[in-house]
């Protein structure tokens, strides 16, 4: 970031899962309360709030803070698909870095409909003609990795096995059981090559962070070094903007690549400096593509990255120690901030059995509809 230092002064999270007895406002309030309590901040202690959510509807953040008696400050509701929380974080961090505000609250929450995500993004004819199912687009991207990056079905399964092994130790995750290769490869085929256990579940949850020009009471201090949002440049038929067409052989950099480039430059770090990464794993193929797009390996090296176990807890660069979306599930507005909460715990050294020893530099990444991609760099 340019300008003042931006500290993460407090974090809070509501578990990701299914909570029929609670509405989305209550999920958001639980995460907000936890973050404000940890930061020692109450009414009057923050000057603005930024709320990421996609499916919640009108004035979502206002209902959360109004219900807690904390309204009065500007409350900005932000929708940027899967990157909504990252977009909200970027606005909050910029407000602190610029000196506009000393302390801001950033939160995100979601209560996703069950089943395949239905999106108002598509005109009705696209749904009627069969052009809307997200897993089919995920499958085409996975197929491309198989054709061009040496990725195999076993690599795809191994990503799911890894993330579920991590999720076993995460009390905030929806699925906390280990999966075997046989279970993942033998599960129901949703869209070849992706089986049911290679896809994350849309679900519910919330996460919140307090950003401040000063460190919070819980140490060691964690700084936001970059929080970048990018949209797509047209040209890729497989981009998250879900076009009907693209160009052959003239593909622009993806929003993840442009966001990562900008974030590394702002933070003054490169992929080699990272100790721990939380990245978008909507499906197993998306994790491998994210690894390539973030520069964690060379282009086309995603299969080898998985085969060599680089992203395992025992590997050189643990990826998704939280269990990722595959274990946690994906509440769109909360998922990016859920990564940030996990990474703050990692940098503080309080991630319990998920702890990456000595983590000092962390990266969070989300990408989805819009297209939107966010890349956040945190350091201790």
């Amino acid at each position: 970031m340019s300008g003042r230092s931006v500290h993460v002064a407090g974090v809070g999270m509501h578990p990701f899962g299914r909570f029929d007895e609670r509405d989305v406002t209550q999920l958001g309030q639980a995460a907000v309360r936890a973050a404000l309590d940890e930061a020692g901040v109450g009414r009057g202690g923050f000057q603005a709030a930024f709320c990421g959510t996609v499916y919640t509807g009108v004035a979502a953040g206002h209902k959360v803070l109004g219900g807690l008696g904390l309204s009065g400050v500007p409350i900005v509701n932000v929708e940027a698909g899967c990157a909504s929380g990252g977009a909200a974080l970027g606005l909050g961090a910029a407000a602190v870095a610029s000196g506009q505000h000393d302390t801001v609250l950033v939160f995100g929450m979601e209560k996703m409909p069950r089943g395949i995500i239905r999106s108002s993004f598509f005109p009705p004819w696209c749904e009627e003609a069969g052009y809307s199912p997200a897993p089919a687009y995920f499958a085409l991207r996975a197929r491309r990795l198989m054709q061009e990056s040496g990725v195999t079905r076993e690599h795809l399964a191994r990503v799911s096995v890894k993330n579920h092994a991590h999720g076993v130790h995460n009390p905030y995750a929806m699925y906390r059981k280990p999966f075997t290769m046989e279970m993942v490869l033998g599960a129901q085929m949703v869209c070849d090559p992706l089986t049911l256990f290679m896809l994350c579940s849309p679900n519910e949850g919330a996460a919140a962070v307090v950003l401040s020009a000063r460190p919070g009471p819980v140490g060691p201090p964690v700084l936001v070094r970059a929080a970048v949002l990018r949209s797509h440049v047209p040209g890729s038929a497989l981009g998250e903007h879900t076009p009907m067409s693209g160009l052959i052989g003239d593909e622009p950099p993806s929003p993840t690549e442009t966001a990562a480039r900008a974030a590394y430059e702002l933070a003054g770090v490169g992929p080699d400096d990272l100790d721990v990464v939380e990245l978008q794993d909507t499906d197993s193929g998306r994790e491998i593509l994210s690894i390539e797009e973030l520069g964690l390996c060379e282009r086309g090296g995603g299969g080898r990255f998985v085969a060599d176990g680089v992203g395992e807890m025992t590997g050189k660069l643990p990826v998704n120690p939280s269990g990722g979306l595959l274990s946690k599930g994906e509440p769109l507005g909360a998922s990016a901030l859920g990564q940030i909460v996990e990474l703050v715990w990692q940098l503080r050294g309080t991630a319990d059995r998920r702890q990456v020893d000595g983590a000092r530099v962390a990266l969070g990444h989300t990408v989805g509809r819009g297209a939107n991609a966010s890349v956040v760099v945190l350091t201790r």
Partner: protein
Amino acid sequence: MTRAMAQVPIHPGLFTLPGDPRGPHLLAGRCVACGKHHFPAGDTCPYCSAADCRVEAIGTRGTLYLHTVVNARPPGYRGPLPYGFGVVDLKEGLRVVSRLTESDLATLRPGLPLALEVAPLYVDDAGDEVLSFAYRPDPGAGG
């Protein structure tokens, strides 16, 4: 009173209709300024923002780049299951996302020659056949 079953496109401006002397084509936009194609056709070029685009009928044939098969009914979808779904490369330099008539994974492979088809996908609530586009394997193309 009954009326004869009519055929209606699922959305106007996507493809040529049955009886068109040109045969089945996609109706793509082509930018006069930069020459690039886009689909569906729009007034403004997505690549250079120029407002001068013409509609061109393209995509009679193509080759399969990527494919999958959709087994579960997506919300709102009204056609048959399972269905093939893929990315098709056209000689005009355009790469289109398309439904495939073939849903057998043993048949679908990268580079498979394909031909465009405009055909009924489902019958709507008014009793009309709704036409959509899809690519089908084209053994006549060799390869």
